[in-house]
């Protein structure tokens, strides 16, 4: 497989603070790679190092097989779509798109042709003469991307470019970006703190926390099979119990939660007898299960119904006051449930995963 | 409420008026002509507060012309710049010589000033002090220099400085064999002389270090050795002589240019009495003596001799033997037209490359 980007043992320190801590990964040619993490996790620093705005403390960045150390941003075969887009207000749309080509001294006629082609490709034909302030948020977005893509970069870096858009437009742009990437075939590296953006668009997602990659994998892998408690908690919604592992039987453990419920659940590699954390997705819970064979069950009281169409949930509370979310399928079977109702919740031992509880690093 | 405000404002103006009521003398003069110790003494004696504004001939005239003779109680222009200005603009009032203690003055000087400042049968000034323009020379580098021609002499290349104003034109006129003062009445001849002087000064321009703009600048240039031959006032030369014996004032062989600074009362002076008081006060021998000792400017006061610092007398005697005094060319009143002509010549010299 060909890699457009190979990062090995990359470290960036600001004074005594390690913003990026020994990160290594590869991005295959033509893929959509996302780096997902909370703000302050070091993802922007990582991106800026790839673009060339920051120099690494140690480690190596290779783009298409070439070491990038000492190469200035204007000479790297990568382009960056900025968080606030950074379109040049003193130029019109066409001039913005032509900016990079002009720097490369491309003949004027070709610049015009390629600019128009690019505008067409991003769905803005005939917009060349418009001023930047005349465009809507989504249109600006497309110009910002077009401005980079027209240069045929090896990598297109995107720094949370959807952050400034309203929700509806953001949903729409997610799909559009994904389609665009598929169409142009350029390798995209996309950083975001929004897990839904990462999951929807990416071929591969890296979850980053405190300067390190917690897990790299497909969106499905991250969701279904998180390798660390952080990933389990950060990617998608999860219910969480603290407890103690009492027995380990191969891939299954017996866990007693702090509120004295006893469950069987899937064991993650490092879980053993002792303090542990159990994660369970809301959609893994079955309300008032018909047959309870082989299921973990426990009683709960409905506190509120969180109606959100296909994504509706019940906010429930166990007798000892632990709040849990359970998916509420909209198939009319549960129309009778009202706040205050006492229900039984059941789940398959394979759906819950148990990690050894680690003292969180400060 | 509004009435109160108006009253308050009125009261404020009244107060300001009261504050102004202390008697003051507004004096428009040259730097050094109103030493602080004499001002203090005068205030103590008379209770009159003295407000001093420093200026020079040209600015004095401009200031008084702008207000048509108001704003000051007493001015000190040079005697040659009074008559024509008075004729044109009427900015002074005649002196009431009965209020002057004429026995304080050197009689010949008082008479000369009276004569030179006469307009329509009335005189407009009394003398205060006098001095000459000549050469300030660093004799170590430019020994034996005795002519105005030194200012256009190539051997002092880059070491020459003068003020681009009247005196250098007049001095050079004498050096070139003219008698500028005799030509005052003949505009055309005067113009021809100016053309000649202009040509000489432009030709010699590369020799000039700088055109000095004020006395301090001149003193500093000569003191530091940057300039060795300069046109300047005698008292400046004497001041430098005290610091460095090589530097001295030299009266040019063509004759030093003699000026007399005067007292003249502006047409719309408010406190004329105080003005006369100041004149009589300043001419008192002990006060004139103190002024002369400090500023090294000879006074028009008759009996000041015993009060003058012997060091000054030594300077004076060294630079002005009797023959040199006799050779001083005193500025006669200058006709207005000539000054405009000179102004243009000076502009052209400055602009020439």
């Amino acid at each position: 497989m060909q890699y457009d980007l190979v990062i090995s043992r990359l470290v960036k320190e600001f004074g005594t603070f390690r913003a990026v801590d020994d990160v290594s990964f590869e991005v295959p040619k033509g893929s959509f790679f996302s780096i997902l993490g909370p703000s302050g996790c070091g993802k922007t620093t990582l991106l800026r190092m790839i673009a060339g705005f920051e120099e690494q403390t140690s480690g190596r960045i290779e783009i298409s097989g070439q070491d990038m150390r000492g190469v200035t941003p204007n000479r790297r075969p990568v382009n960056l779509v900025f968080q606030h887009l950074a379109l040049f207000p003193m130029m019109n749309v066409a001039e913005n798109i032509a900016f990079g080509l002009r720097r490369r001294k491309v003949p004027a006629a070709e610049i015009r042709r390629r600019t128009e082609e690019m505008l067409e490709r991003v769905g803005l034909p005939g917009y060349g003469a418009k001023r930047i302030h005349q465009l809507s948020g989504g249109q600006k977005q497309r110009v910002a991307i077009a401005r980079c893509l027209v240069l045929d970069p090896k990598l297109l870096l995107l720094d949370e470019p959807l952050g400034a858009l309203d929700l509806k437009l953001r949903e729409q742009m997610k799909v559009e970006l994904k389609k665009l990437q598929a169409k142009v075939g350029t390798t995209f590296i996309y950083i975001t703190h929004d897990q839904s953006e990462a999951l929807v668009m990416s071929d591969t997602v890296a979850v980053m926390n405190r300067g390190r990659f917690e897990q790299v994998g497909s969106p499905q892998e991250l969701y279904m099979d998180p390798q660390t408690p952080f990933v389990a908690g950060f990617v998608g919604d999860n219910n969480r119990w603290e407890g103690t592992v009492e027995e380990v039987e191969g891939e299954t453990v017996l866990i007693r939660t702090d509120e004295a419920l006893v469950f069987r659940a899937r064991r993650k590699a490092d879980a053993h007898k002792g303090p542990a954390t159990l994660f369970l997705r809301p959609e893994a819970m079955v309300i008032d299960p018909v047959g309870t064979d082989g299921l973990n069950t426990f009683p709960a009281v409905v506190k509120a119904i969180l109606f959100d169409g296909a994504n509706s949930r019940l906010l429930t509370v166990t007798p000892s006051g632990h709040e849990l979310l359970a998916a509420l399928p909209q198939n009319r079977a549960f129309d009778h449930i009202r706040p205050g109702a006492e229900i039984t919740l059941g789940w398959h031992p394979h759906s819950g995963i148990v990690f050894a509880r680690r003292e969180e690093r400060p | 409420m509004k009435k109160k405000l108006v009253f308050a404002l009125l009261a404020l103006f009244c107060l300001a008026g009261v504050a102004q009521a202390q008697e003051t003398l507004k004096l428009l003069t040259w730097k050094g002509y109103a030493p602080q110790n004499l001002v203090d003494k005068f205030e103590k004696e008379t209770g009159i507060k003295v407000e001093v504004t420093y200026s020079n001939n040209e600015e004095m005239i401009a200031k008084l012309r702008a207000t048509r003779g108001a704003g000051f109680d007493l001015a000190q222009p040079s005697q040659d710049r009074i008559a024509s200005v008075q004729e044109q603009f009427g900015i002074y009032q005649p002196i009431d010589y009965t209020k002057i203690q004429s026995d304080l003055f050197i009689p010949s000087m008082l008479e000369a000033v009276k004569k030179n400042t006469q307009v329509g049968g009335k005189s407009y000034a009394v003398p205060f002090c006098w001095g000459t323009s000549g050469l300030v020379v660093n004799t170590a580098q430019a020994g034996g220099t005795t002519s105005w021609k030194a200012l256009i002499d190539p051997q002092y290349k880059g070491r020459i400085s003068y003020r681009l104003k009247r005196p250098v034109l007049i001095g050079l006129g004498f050096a070139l064999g003219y008698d500028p003062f005799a030509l005052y009445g003949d505009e055309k001849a005067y113009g021809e002389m100016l053309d000649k002087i202009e040509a000489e000064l432009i030709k010699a321009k590369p020799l000039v270090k700088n055109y000095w703009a004020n006395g301090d600048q001149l003193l500093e240039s000569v003191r530091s050795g940057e300039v060795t031959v300069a046109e300047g006032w005698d008292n400046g030369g004497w001041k430098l002589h005290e610091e460095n014996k090589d530097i001295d004032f030299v009266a040019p062989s063509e004759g030093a240019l003699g000026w007399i600074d005067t007292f003249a009362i502006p047409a719309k002076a408010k406190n004329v009495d105080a003005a006369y008081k100041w004149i009589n006060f300043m001419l008192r021998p002990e006060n004139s003596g103190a002024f002369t000792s400090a500023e090294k400017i000879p006074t028009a006061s008759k009996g000041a001799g015993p009060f003058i610092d012997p060091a000054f007398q030594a300077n004076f005697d060294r630079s002005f033997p009797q023959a040199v005094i006799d050779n001083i060319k005193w500025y006669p009143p200058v006709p207005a037209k000539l000054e405009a002509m000179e102004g243009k010549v000076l502009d052209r010299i400055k602009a020439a490359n």
Partner: protein
Amino acid sequence: MNRSGLFWLFLTPVLLWLFLLIVLPHVDLFILSFRTDEGWSLENYANFFTEPIYWLTFVRTAVYSIITTLLTLVVSLPVAFYITKLSRPRVRGFLMILLLLPFWVSELVRVYGWMILLRESGVLNYLFLQLGLLERPVEMLYNDATMIMGLVYTSMLFMVVPLVSVMESLDDSLVEAAYDLGASKICIWRTIIIPHCKPGITSGAIVVFMLVLGNYLTPNLMGGKNSLWFTEQIYNQFIASFNWNQGAAFGFLLLALSSCIVWVGLKLTGQKLGEVAS
């Protein structure tokens, strides 16, 4: 008294002030400029064009003012950029104070400071002699280059301040985006920073140009033997030649011609005065 009455009550002193102390003297001077000893005439204005020394002095003054303005701009751009974009906030305040500091003393003192430094027997010459860089002292004062340097120094603040305020509104990511898209540093200045700063540059340039054109002290004291400045010409007419009519005419010519130059400058750079002022 109603509200508008009160309004006029308070405004009257201001209007009187403006009228008595600003408008009236100008009207008076304007009338003066059309008079000669013989009566009404355009002679004073004609003199300017027929006597080469006058208009040559003006041309010289204007050309030097333009050069000074451009130099001030070239020097101020990096200074303003450093202050707004590169220095830390605390250092920034300190730097602004450093810039302001010379303006706490009068222009005369500043010019004398330069003279003490640069004169033949001055501080710099002494230093160079001691260091063996020079064999004999050289006169650094009294030439056009020194005069222009003095003028640039005097004017810099008036260029830096508007530049700092426009540069503060420049989004850093625009600069980075240009860099990322392949622009060199010079190209970034040309295509991004300067176009962004245009309003500040224009207002700074107008202020500096007018200040330099109207300066009197610096050219007079630091300039050489040939440094006749147009303001000196006006001064000479008023003070030395007693020719107020001519002086007034020169004053209005200076006003008109400098306004023309500013107007041409705005046209050439495609700006409008209203945009600059806002």
